[in-house]
């Protein structure tokens, strides 16, 4: 790069399309396919009311007699037919998956966002302030690590159940899930951000900003934060997959989304009861959807990790 190669600045989009990241993306079939699948699933979930054939969350629209209809088969009593069959309540599995994915994604995204915001703030604070602040935050992180995510989730659930009035419980369930999963997840964000902050803090551009007189908050947010975001992005992606799985696991242990508004995990919990009895579709389709969703998000995260790691190039 010599001094006179200064042409006109290309547009933001042009530059994005020209970036190494996009190039790496375009040349990686795995990344392309997994991005395609994730986006497809996410869109399907977001626009579930438009895509789905029925609204499975409206109990009064269900006909119990449609229960256990196999895929693409006419129900013996009602004569209805469903592309992926129906579950034990007569819900259309296809529609329920779309609506369930909505809840799973919402819980996952919100939990990761919660963990991210908490972890990034605490990590920045610990890394930048150092000293006692650092010690307290990182000891808290140690304590948090002592409780593996499942335990944390059950604890949060227990407390939430204990302290909220019964009538708010079903609206609460999802928020509690988000809180539970998010709480068990913030540590890794905090650790990574703290580590990266320690590295960035010692760089001279931070010294330059301090020299200008910028207050610590401005330095953390304007200078350090943007520079520690790439690992955060990678962790966030992988955490999203983990959060979706965690939600499913918690549902299995009975602390998940309410059965009248099932998430993917709740659907799998319901479906696994019918694994031996031959109603395979109640488990199979939600499990495949979960697998596709988690796998594509995981693959994206994996790819992103490699692509954003300049040293691996």
């Amino acid at each position, binding site marked *: 790069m010599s001094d006179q190669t200064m042409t006109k600045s290309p547009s933001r989009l042009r530059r994005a399309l020209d970036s190494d990241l996009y190039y790496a993306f375009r040349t990686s079939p795995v990344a392309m396919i997994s991005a395609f699948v994730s986006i497809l699933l996410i869109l399907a979930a977001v626009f579930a009311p438009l895509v789905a054939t029925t609204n499975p969350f409206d109990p009064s629209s269900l006909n119990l007699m449609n229960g256990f209809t196999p895929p693409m088969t006419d129900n013996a009593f009602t004569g209805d037919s469903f592309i992926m069959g129906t579950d034990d309540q007569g819900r259309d599995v296809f529609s329920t998956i779309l609506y369930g994915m909505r809840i799973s994604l919402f819980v996952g995204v919100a939990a990761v966002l919660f963990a991210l915001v908490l972890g990034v703030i605490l990590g920045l604070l610990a890394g930048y302030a150092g000293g006692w602040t650092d010690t307290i935050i990182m000891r808290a992180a140690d304590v948090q690590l002592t409780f593996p995510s499942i335990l944390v989730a059950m604890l949060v659930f227990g407390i939430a159940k204990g302290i909220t009035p019964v009538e708010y419980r079903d609206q609460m369930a999802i928020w509690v899930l988000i809180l539970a999963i998010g709480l068990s997840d913030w540590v890794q964000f905090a650790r990574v951000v703290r580590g990266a902050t320690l590295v960035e803090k010692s760089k001279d551009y931070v010294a330059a900003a301090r020299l200008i007189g910028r207050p610590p908050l401005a330095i953390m947010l304007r200078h350090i934060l943007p520079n520690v975001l790439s690992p955060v992005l990678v962790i966030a992606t992988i955490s999203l997959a983990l959060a979706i799985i965690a939600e499913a696991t918690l549902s299995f242990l*009975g602390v998940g989304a309410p059965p009248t508004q099932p998430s993917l995990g709740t659907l799998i919990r319901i479906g696994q009861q019918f694994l*031996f009895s031959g109603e395979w579709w109640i488990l199979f389709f939600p499990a495949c959807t979960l697998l596709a969703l988690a796998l594509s998000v995981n693959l994206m995260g994996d790819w992103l990790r490699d692509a954003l790691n300049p040293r691996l190039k």
Partner: protein
Amino acid sequence: MKTMTGLLAAAALMSTTALVNAETLRWARSGDALTLDPHSQNEGPTHTIRHQMYEPLVIRDVTGAFEPALATEWAPKADDPTVWVFKLREGVKFHGGEDFTAEDVVFSFERAMQPNSDMKELIGSIKEVRAVDDLTVEFVTDGPNPILPSNLTNLFIMDKGWTEANNTVNVQDFEGGEITFATTNANGTGPYVLTSREPDVKTVMTRNEAYWGRDQFPMEVSEIIYTPIQNAATRVAALLSGEVNFLQDMPVQDISRVDQAEGLVVKQAPQNRVIFFGLNMGADDIEADNVEGKNPLADVRVRKAMSMAINRDAIKQVVMRGQSEPAGMISPPFVNGWTAEMDAESTTDVEGAKALMAEAGYGDGFSIRLDCPNDRYINDEAICQAAVGMLGQIGVKVNLNAQPKAQHFPLITDSKTDFYMLGWGVPTYDSEYIFNFLVHGRESDIGTWNGTGFDNDEIDAKIATLKSNTDLDARNADIAAIWRVVQDEQLYIPIHHQVLNWSMAEGVGITVDPEDQPKVKYFTMK
């Protein structure tokens, strides 16, 4: 990878060895007995294990009829209705070789009356137990008690000498965490002898060759290995893979699979348990709805409409896979006071229900929370879910709160729910038991499970007389009258009677017991 396949191959070679001894009953169900102490914990699965090792004076057979056990005859004293006379079986010995005498019966009943005993309420009417001779015992009650034998079917007899020698005369203080010799050891007169026990893991018993009924009953099982398996899928898998050959708590959806499986059968019988919804009709306003200042449930038309909205046949068909009997009253059919007519009173009529709702002023419906257990009754959560949909059709918007029984039941007993699911079994086979708990107005020691807020002094007075009314006809008339009120007031919304499903290997001959109390001495093995 290589090691993995190696292991699998080795496992495959070994797999055939597990199932040799045909006389071993490998028995699984969802939970374990809480203790072995005969007079602690009045709980079904706990009694089930005790029944193999201990015996009461009388038991019920699979039809619900009394069958002599340690007593051979029993009747109230001809001249004094407050005294019951029990003749005891001769020549019975405990596992330790001790002789069974009237002294043991007196001792056991006195033990069962201790404060720590969980059985004391059942024999609360007994004032005195006396041994007339070695083989005759008299029970003196505080008034005439026509149904005393019904309360004795789970009252096990211990050996006085053994109990005293092992310092376990006092009933284990279960809640206080006491462990006594009797908690982990057993010395009964029963058909099986305890060999080893790891709570929640495994209990092993072997046949008592010296059992008094060794020749009277099949007694073909020589060894019992009892394993609790909580996860339903794992439980079924264990049966399908042949690791167990007798399964209680069978998930209904797996019945056909198990039935079709080579060498496995599923047997059914109506269970002594009815499932229903409770409605808080007594409060002026209820918390769990969206109607301010009024209680829609207080209006009998609303209660009737809600009952009419429930399609019990669909629930039976889909949720229960045919394994239930739609109910019209909250009494199992075995119970004195049950009538086929009343049990058929539930109808499904969505249009009629809507009309009733409109008539009651709730044409636009209302919303309410339904509290439901998810680990207590067969498909409890799925039933509630189905009900949510059905009630939705008449405008009652139901928010479902399904949770483990540990959290569910306190809601009922602490009056924190206005609409809830409950199941009820009647060990005494008499309606009085139902009335005492579910119909009588709530007081500190009666009506404790009545979450409806129903409190009618007249009915309460009637219920109180049932205890000592020896005139059986008059008593039955009172029972019928009380039932009529319960039915007309639609105090509860009955759903169905549970059907018990036991599954077993083909060679295991079993008749299903309506109280879900298998007694292995009846089993045959081929």
